[in-house]
């Protein structure tokens, strides 16, 4: 397979047992590219939430459906995409977990976690079915006045 030089991909069957494999790989990648422990901890948790949603709501625990996780190590940011093979959903119609009426709900806080811990979270439907969540986290605090995009450059470096 052709692959950009700064990409690592992991594919798991839809089993909760495998989520720890994804978060440990996440830890290794954030550690390798120099995230501090605190940032790495929250990225780990955001990835866990997104993969758990893909297993639970997306693939509905169908062990034959995979969850595909892709890490793109950009110069400025780590991008993680999580894809499932379910029916998809519309994130704009979800109940707000912070609404006082919802505070005692037993669920519904995963996407809030993701949005809180990452710099950006976006959802789209995959043309061949399933959802793709794309999350990114800056590698270092931006210097004041620095306006360049935080995306991936032509020549991405594993270590900066």
């Amino acid at each position, binding site marked *: 397979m052709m692959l950009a030089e700064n990409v690592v991909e992991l594919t798991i069957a839809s089993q*909760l*047992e495998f*989520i720890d494999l994804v978060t440990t790989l996440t830890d290794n990648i954030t550690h390798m590219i120099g995230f501090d422990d605190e940032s790495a*901890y929250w990225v780990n*948790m955001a990835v*866990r*939430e997104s993969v*758990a949603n893909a297993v*639970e709501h997306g693939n509905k625990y169908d062990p034959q459906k995979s969850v595909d996780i892709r890490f793109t190590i950009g110069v400025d940011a780590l991008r993680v995409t999580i894809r499932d093979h379910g029916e998809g959903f519309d994130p704009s119609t979800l109940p707000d*977990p*912070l609404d006082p009426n919802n*505070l*005692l*709900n*037993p*669920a*519904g*806080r*995963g996407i*809030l*976690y993701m949005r*809180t811990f990452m710099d950006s979270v976006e959802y789209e439907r995959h043309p061949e079915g399933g959802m793709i969540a794309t999350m990114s986290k800056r590698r270092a605090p931006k210097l004041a006045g620095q306006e360049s995009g935080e995306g991936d450059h032509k020549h991405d470096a594993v270590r900066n």
Partner: protein
Amino acid sequence: MQLEIRERTIGEVTILDLIGKITIGDGSVQLRDAVNHLLEAGRNRIILNLGGVTYVDSSGIGELVSRFTTTKGTGGKLKLLNLPKKIKDLLMITKLLTVFEIHEDEQAAIESFQ
């Protein structure tokens, strides 16, 4: 096993010392079982000592909330003790800090049931 639960009884109060991670699957299920087990035995004055908990995902937070409401439904109370910084952050983010009764001192937590 990602979550270890130790049970201590002080009079009518039960303290569950939780050590490890409360996450989707095993951890959340263990917590649910432990609390439900107490409630079935009529022991509904419960303190969860989170001092040894390093990680609570959204499923774990949901489990804390639902054990809180279930305990309340039996006329009892479930209180939290010794929140590590990161778990406090999570309760803040989810606006649950004021929902739970939270203690930093075990003795005070026990006495709060009297």
